[in-house]
């Protein structure tokens, strides 16, 4: 998505990215980024929390108006909750999951080989299951 933002901006359309993967976006570099420090999935606010969702979009609009240079990053004031375990939980690899992941990888590579043979040239990033 960062690549799309850069392309639009290069061609004269100002952009703001709202996301939850700070390191991925900063690694690429985008004109304006609003960071929601949440588990991946709800960068515009917690599900059904309309007040929070409204505030986050307002902040994105404010960032559009205030940013004066590329790579401007802001953070929403919201946290997911007191329990921070979600940070370590995502895509966790441990002795219980290692064999399952290896088998998933084997199955995925077989599928990729088949897709290539079928002329399918597009593939998603690997996703946590």
């Amino acid at each position, binding site marked *: 998505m960062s690549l799309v*933002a850069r392309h639009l901006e290069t061609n004269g359309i100002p952009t703001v990215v709202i996301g939850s993967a700070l390191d991925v976006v900063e690694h690429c570099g985008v004109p304006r980024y609003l960071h929601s420090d949440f588990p991946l999935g709800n960068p515009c606010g917690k599900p059904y929390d309309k007040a929070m969702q409204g505030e986050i979009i307002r902040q994105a609009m404010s960032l559009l108006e205030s940013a004066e240079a590329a790579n401007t990053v802001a953070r929403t004031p919201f946290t997911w909750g007191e329990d921070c375990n979600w940070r370590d939980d995502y895509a966790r690899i441990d002795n219980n999951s290692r064999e399952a992941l290896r088998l998933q990888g084997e199955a995925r590579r077989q599928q990729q080989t088949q897709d290539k043979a079928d002329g399918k040239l597009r593939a*998603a990033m690997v996703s946590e299951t």
Partner: protein
Amino acid sequence: MAIKDVSYIIKTRDYYRAQGYTTDYLWAQFDTTPFTHLEKPLSESRIGVITTTMPDTEAGRVDRRVWSTASAPIPRSMYTEELSWHKSMTHTDDVASFLPLAQLNSLQDEGVIGSVASRFHSVPTEYSQRNTLEQDAPEVLARCRQDEVDIAILVPL
């Protein structure tokens, strides 16, 4: 204790390795970042929305390409299953948590923004940066120009 931001680059690297991939994914990186100033006030601007979620239709679930969907009525669901998000911790049942159309409609009613584009665009997350750079990004730009969008909000899931 200070909260440390999650490193999804490292987590993704380790996840690929655990699945037996021998070459690490190379994330896009550039020396410079483009920047365009707003040409007109927000209150006169048309806002376009771009999402990595796909239309929750038979075609949208299987065909990985740029899709455009009417902004009204707001879709009740989007297809998110293939994307990387924290499935054990949250859900994507409330589209407003990642597709800010309702929020933008409210800002339009208040006069904070000029209008919301009549359609929004889905762009697939791709392993291949070439597919994104050479096909999808130009396609999204062309569609945003057709929509006469002044500003784009991009929300990766």
